[in-house]
């Protein structure tokens, strides 16, 4: 969009504000809401950024231990989960595209499938984790403590990073459930779908993070 257009938009908004209004503004500022959402996403990015930084430091220090430890991760499940999340991102985007065109039912369908994928992801994650637990590999387990430091750290990072990510998936799924409700009740519709759009942004971020987690943990050889 050209800058002149931005100015036009800004002036329009300014006009709106000039109308005597009350503090519960009747006009919503979609653009502002989106700015807010993006800023929030940045904080999430940096939150994980800290963890990735830790990963970098330790990968450098314990590169061999990392390779050994990574052999025990289930590449197949990891790949399936990657595909699931990517697909959920697609359905999320489609859900927004549908409501943009005013097609509520389609939008709801796509949103439901997104939530479905989220659940599938979590179920697979659950099996992955419990399998590890059965092998006695979890933080502070005697089995793990016997291993070299590098492997302990690898699993420390693995559990905290995928754990935090899983937490985000859960939060995202709950958020999407609310959106479903709003869609259902026509609170989200063709003219006002910023909530759905923002939740979508959040959901894509969850996907983005996984895009990096996946090679860093599952693809070390």
């Amino acid at each position, binding site marked *: 969009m050209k800058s002149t257009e931005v100015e036009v938009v800004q002036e329009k908004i*300014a006009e709106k504000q000039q109308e005597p209004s009350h*503090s519960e503004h009747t006009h919503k500022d979609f653009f502002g809401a989106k700015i807010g959402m993006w*800023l929030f996403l940045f*904080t999430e990015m940096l*939150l994980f950024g800290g963890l990735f*930084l830790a990963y970098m430091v330790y990968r450098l220090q314990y590169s061999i231990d990392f390779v050994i430890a990574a052999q025990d991760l289930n590449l197949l499940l990891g790949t399936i989960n990657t595909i699931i999340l990517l697909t959920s991102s697609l359905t999320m985007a489609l859900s927004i595209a549908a409501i943009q065109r005013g097609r509520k039912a389609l939008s709801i369908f796509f949103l439901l499938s997104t939530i479905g994928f989220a659940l599938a992801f979590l179920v697979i994650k659950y099996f992955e984790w419990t399998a590890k637990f059965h092998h006695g590999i979890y933080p502070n387990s005697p089995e793990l403590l016997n291993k070299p430091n590098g492997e302990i750290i690898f699993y*420390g990072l693995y559990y*905290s990073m995928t754990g935090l990510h899983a937490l985000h998936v859960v939060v995202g799924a709950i958020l999407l459930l609310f959106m479903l409700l709003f869609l259902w009740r026509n609170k989200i519709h063709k003219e006002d779908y910023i909530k759905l759009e923002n939740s979508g942004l959040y959901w894509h971020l969850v996907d983005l993070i996984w895009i990096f987690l996946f090679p860093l943990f599952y693809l070390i050889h």
Partner: protein
Amino acid sequence: MSNETNSATQLSYLDYKPKKGIWAWLLTTDHKRIGLLYLIGMMIFFWVAVGIGFVMKLEMLTPDQTVVDAQTYNSLFTLHGLIMIFLFIIPGLPAVFGNFFLPIQIGAHDVAFPRLNLLSWYLYIIGGLFALVSLHLQGGPIDTGWTFYVPYSIRTTTNVILPLLGAFILGFSSILTGLNFVTTVHRLRAPGMTFFRLPLFVWALYATAWIQVVATPIVGITILLVVIERVLHIGIFDPALGGDPLLFQHLFWIYSHPAVYIMILPAMGVVSEIIPTFARRTIFGYKVIAFSSLAIALIGYFVWAHHMFTSGMSETARFVFSLLTFLVAVPSGVKVFNWVATLYKGSIELRAPLIYILMFIFLFSIGGLTGLVLGSLATNVHVTDTYFVVAHFHYVMFGGTAIVFFAAMHYWFPKMFGKMYNEKIAIWATPFIFIGFNMLYFTMFILGYQGMPRRYWSYLPEYQELHIISTIGSWILIFGLVIMFSNLIFGLIKGRRADSNPWGGVTLEWQIPSPPPHENFEKIPVIDHGPYDFERFKNENKNEIDRS
């Protein structure tokens, strides 16, 4: 724009009560009320920390035990640091005066997300309560220092987890405030209020808000990892399991160095407001000051490891970070020079707020310039972790930010409450504060250079004389502060009515009644001039100026 006509049509924010009783405050989304809520919360936490500081200085009177034992002292300085940093000085200016005046100064009715704003306040209070509750739990108050260095923080048996979670929540509160301000500045400027017509306080808050948004999450995750380490033993920070304590220090300072600019930038913004008002002239080098705020925010990001020069980092890192540290001093210097130049050929009225600002310039310069000593490798290695550092950061934080906080309280007092404090008494408090401050903290530079390490409960007898001078200084200082605060509180109760523009300021907040009406502006103003255009203002409001 006289007071009477306006108050007839619009209720002041203090009188406008959409809800009953206390709920009119606790559920308000009015940015001005939220600002006051912050002020109240901050007052309470703050005086607790001041009391602790006072006790610490008492303890330092003699080389051995004076009033408290070692364990207590360790908890005291930790709490003192924690409260001062996370509950007072980081939220301080943005949350109180930023909340109150940012929307007014850009000509808006409120911030972009008023309800989020209230949520920030609740998070702030909850975070503070976490810290306070931890004091009364088994294990005793946290004793790690405000820096939480591992592995001590994962070994100590005191209550670490709760204050850490408190800090995490406070971090979120800070992020949300920052996010709110960035959006507000982008979206809610009045028509014609271009970026280069923003008052410099807004510029400073904008730069600060960005740091809050992109730096705070790092400390958030760091703190969480420490908590996880304590509970689950994942090894990331535990050297016994292969963890790297230096990684913690990096992560901690990646946030906490930018955080010191979160503390000082808003203060610098306030200075750029007060000086023009009392000099009756436009600021010298508006754009340079505006950009130096951004420059400080930016370069401030590149220097964190100057807190780690002796930690065993690589030589390369020592070199790089020292060099960058020196560069960050330049934009601060630019501001100082521009402020002084703004006094040149002004028409200066020496009122209490300006006196505090002059004091700020002097004290902050000392603090900042000794920052150079700390940034230089050779000298840092000698004075790091000594009282020299303690002196440095009190000069910049207390002599810098807190003194500006006082200036801001005086400057905006009539606007916020529609009352006036007693000017004479306000001025009388300043010499006590100035002398007490320097006695208290300048001695610490000397102590530090002589090699007295910080966080010491007992010390070698040869340091005692200086400690005594310093402690006496703290009494004088507190005396001055008590005068100042009592005067303000007295003004609040008994002060005479203030009119809408007692100082002859020209930014938007002075164009509306005191205290501001609930909606700030009846009609959003249209802006066609810079923020400090006294020339224009004089022609338009001749009478207004002559009166003051």
